[in-house]
């Protein structure tokens, strides 16, 4: 048996796929997760997974999937990895099918596909309305198989604290804390993959699980890993507002025919008073209710806040499925059940009341890629999914790649699994390239012990915090501030002020009270530590938002938005096209955030795959008819 041992942090789709690839190659893997991996946030994905299998006679293809994805993200993503993902997608869906995922079927017994936002094709495979749960379980089962063989060790209820860094700056393993006993230990590894998901809880309430604090990614960032496109935060158009969480109502509800409307107030140009006004269908006759998420969210915001047409004067519009058949209702049962359970109304009979909510981070840890001259991703390159820290990798929502400035629905599951599939071999290639540095054998014990000692000391300090601030209340304030300043509409004056307020929150953090000094499942101590990471990450998101003076995808600054073109198609308006080009020349760049003790240092770096003579796809104006 090989002695090489790798570490994967996070047990969602990306992490588990990475584990499977490593274990399948005969490597030993330690997987760390703050919850049993089967409870990771991937379970919350509802609608489906994209892959251009083209079983509906529509002429769909992986290249069109790539085009939709790149255009949907307004060309901010590096292109070869996106191309790699879209071309691998059909094979990944078949792999999941072989693993036993109970995908919905056609009458012929083949996989069924539904339509999602930002495309005109039926490209989304689905398992009821809990596709993420079903995919996660399939990968969890495969990992359990390797666990039973002794190939994989699971550290569940263990929290990642930081990576072990050697004198040359390379990552040599992880430091983690057992959340049951609060014991801190080091785990040397040949390479480490972060697969810790998004930072939803930085925004307080979002569609994310409460475990998605972003603290692990923030810890990497604070240790020197670059963070890409932090300001690109997706707002999902349709969620149920709640005290503790904004619960997602999947895009599949619209994919299956759900319609978004508000009662008209009878003003000029709208239907008679009281009649439904299907504003998305009217404004986007081709894509209708399935415009991309940023577009949908802004339209709902416009109708509610600017036009004052929110249902009953509230922050809400109707998402209506009452006209659909019982058969269709069954296809999305899991989502409808959530609505009924929390709202006490049957959405089959009464239109749902929904509003946009923070949902996903396109930005994340910066990762590299390597492609050949034909733009093919090189499967055995150690550079795939590698952060700027040697030996530290990232995959899944925690990486910044694949979605540009806006993610298309049902592309998250495919990007997680694809990145996990790529990262495993890359980590192995990395270890192979430096045999003299085999982690367990060659790592001086003082390096690992030093890392453990630093974190133990840090937690002793946290345990001694006895100030007046309640960390949970401070976390709520952070979330309110971030949600108010960094979501649907951004304004520079508010962002500048927001940065100052974040500095105040940082200072107040130092006066936190740990609330609990115990050594058994001390959740408050863990949260106090995570909260610091959330604040640091919040600063990168706020500052990236401030400095990117344009509108692109989910990042919307009305003060810097391009005017409306004079022609139906923007490409027919040369004046507009000149402005569009000028904007792209300046801003079609990756935001790179580097951590410094005095705050994030932001630069805008060229997108490498666009800097070549012939990119895969030349950028074009992003508009939806």
């Amino acid at each position, binding site marked *: 048996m090989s002695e090489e041992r790798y570490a994967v942090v996070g047990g969602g789709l990306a992490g588990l796929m990475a584990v499977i*690839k490593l274990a*399948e190659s005969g490597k030993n893997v330690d997987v760390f997760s703050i*919850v*049993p991996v*089967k*409870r*990771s*946030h991937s*379970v*919350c994905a509802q609608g489906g997974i994209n892959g251009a299998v083209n079983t509906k006679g529509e002429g769909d293809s992986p290249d069109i999937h790539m085009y939709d994805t790149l255009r949907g993200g307004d060309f901010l993503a590096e292109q070869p990895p996106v191309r790699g993902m879209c071309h691998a997608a059909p*094979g990944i869906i*078949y*792999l999941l099918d*072989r*693993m*036993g995922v*109970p*995908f*919905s*079927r*056609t*009458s*012929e*017994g*083949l996989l069924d596909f539904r339509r999602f936002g930002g495309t005109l094709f039926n490209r989304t495979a689905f*398992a*009821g309305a*809990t596709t993420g*749960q*079903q995919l996660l*379980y399939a990968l969890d*089962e*495969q990992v*359990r*198989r390797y666990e039973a063989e002794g190939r994989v060790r699971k550290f*569940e209820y263990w929290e990642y604290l930081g990576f072990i860094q050697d004198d040359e700056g390379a990552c040599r393993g992880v430091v983690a804390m057992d959340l*049951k006993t609060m014991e801190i230990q080091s785990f040397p590894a040949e390479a480490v993959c972060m697969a810790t998901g998004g930072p939803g809880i930085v925004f307080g309430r979002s569609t994310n699980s*409460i475990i998605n604090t972003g603290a692990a990614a923030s810890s990497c960032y604070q240790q020197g890993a670059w963070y890409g496109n932090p300001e690109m935060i997706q707002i999902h158009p349709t969620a149920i507002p*709640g*005290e*503790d*969480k904004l*619960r*997602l109502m999947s895009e599949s509800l619209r994919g299956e025919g759900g319609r978004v409307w508000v009662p008209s107030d009878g003003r000029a140009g709208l239907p008679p008073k009281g009649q439904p006004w299907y504003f998305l269908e009217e404004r986007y006759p081709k894509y209708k209710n399935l415009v991309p998420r940023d577009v949908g969210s802004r339209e709902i915001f416009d109708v509610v806040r600017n036009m004052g047409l929110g249902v009953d004067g509230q922050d809400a519009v109707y998402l209506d499925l009452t006209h659909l058949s019982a058969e269709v209702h069954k296809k999305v049962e*899991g989502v409808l059940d*959530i609505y009924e*359970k*929390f*709202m*006490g109304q049957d959405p089959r009979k009464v239109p749902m009341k929904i509003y946009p909510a923070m949902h996903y981070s396109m930005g994340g840890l910066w990762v590299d890629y390597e492609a050949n001259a034909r733009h093919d991703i090189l499967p055995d390159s150690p550079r795939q999914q590698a952060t700027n820290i040697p030996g530290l990798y990232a995959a899944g929502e925690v990486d910044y790649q694949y979605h540009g400035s806006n993610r298309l629905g049902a592309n998250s599951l495919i990007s997680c699994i694809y990145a996990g*599939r790529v990262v495993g071999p890359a980590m192995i290639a990395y270890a192979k390239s430096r045999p003299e540095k085999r982690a367990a054998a060659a790592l001086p014990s003082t390096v690992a012990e030093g890392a453990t000692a630093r974190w133990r000391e840090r937690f002793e300090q946290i345990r001694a915090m006895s100030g007046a601030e*309640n960390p*949970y*209340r401070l976390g*709520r304030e952070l979330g309110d501030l971030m949600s108010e300043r960094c979501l649907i509409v951004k304004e520079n004056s508010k962002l500048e002020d927001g940065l100052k307020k974040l500095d105040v929150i940082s200072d107040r953090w130092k006066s936190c009270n740990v*609330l609990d000094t115990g050594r*058994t*499942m001390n*959740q*408050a101590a863990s949260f106090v530590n995570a909260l610091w990471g959330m604040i640091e990450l919040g600063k990168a998101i706020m500052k990236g938002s401030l400095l990117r003076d344009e509108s692109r995808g989910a990042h919307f600054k009305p003060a810097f938005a391009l005017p409306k073109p004079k022609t139906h198609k923007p490409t027919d308006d040369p004046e507009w096209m000149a402005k569009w080009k000028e904007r792209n020349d300046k801003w079609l760049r990756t935001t790179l955030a580097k951590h410094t003790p005095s705050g994030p240092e932001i630069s805008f770096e060229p997108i490498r795959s666009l800097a070549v003579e012939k990119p895969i796809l030349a950028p074009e104006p992003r508009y939806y008819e």
Partner: protein
Amino acid sequence: MSKENVVLRVKRQDGPQSPARWEEFSVPRHAGANVLSVLMQVRENPVTASGQKTTPPAWDAACLEEVCGSCSMLVNGRARQACTALIETYSPNGEPITLEPFSKFPLVRDLVVDRSRMFESLKKVRAWIPIDGTYDLGPGPRMSQKTAEERYVMSTCMTCGCCLEVCPQVNTHSPFIGAAAISQARLFNAHPTGQLNESERLHALMEPGGVADCGKAGNCVQACPKEIPLTTSIAEMNREVTWKAVKDFFVRDSDDHEKKDAS
């Protein structure tokens, strides 16, 4: 009783060896609140109803929409997820709500228990499809939508533990594997590829603590938040296991025959 506040009575225990105690919390009541949102309010001001400072109670949670299975606990004695336990339902007139940890699993702290035995059981019944590899090997077997739907329902099991908590056969003196794992065996046996390893799963269910230990109380199916037909799964696995035992008795190497049949 007041409708202005929510009152929670929480069974506290600092660790498995520590004595248990009850603490009462009273926080302002918000529309649409659930047990977890109230626990979040409590940790923002961890003071008991009588004004005593205390530590925030420990509880498990992740998704808050009843799909991850984390937040199982006893709410007024009923095994369920706390996230969907709406205050309006449990306390229409301001009645106090009682929270206790599950009783059939080792306690970690307060409302958190260790359910790892459930994951271990999934290993026992080999709850996976033994795929050849993650390479591109084409699509899986064709399947009718009816089979897909039947499997889907079983596959929504989130290992939350409600079915074990309410089962009279599950206790510290019994090795009974419980409904969840038995139903997972059925899930994988119902898949054309999974069926190839059917006998491994059936043999696992023949062992002590297997399907024969079910006492047919039927509590599991009523407690399951995902409405999985657990008693149907148990009955079917019982039948299969019986057939398997008969076959094993009369046919030497019956597994080998099955493998040949399948190939």
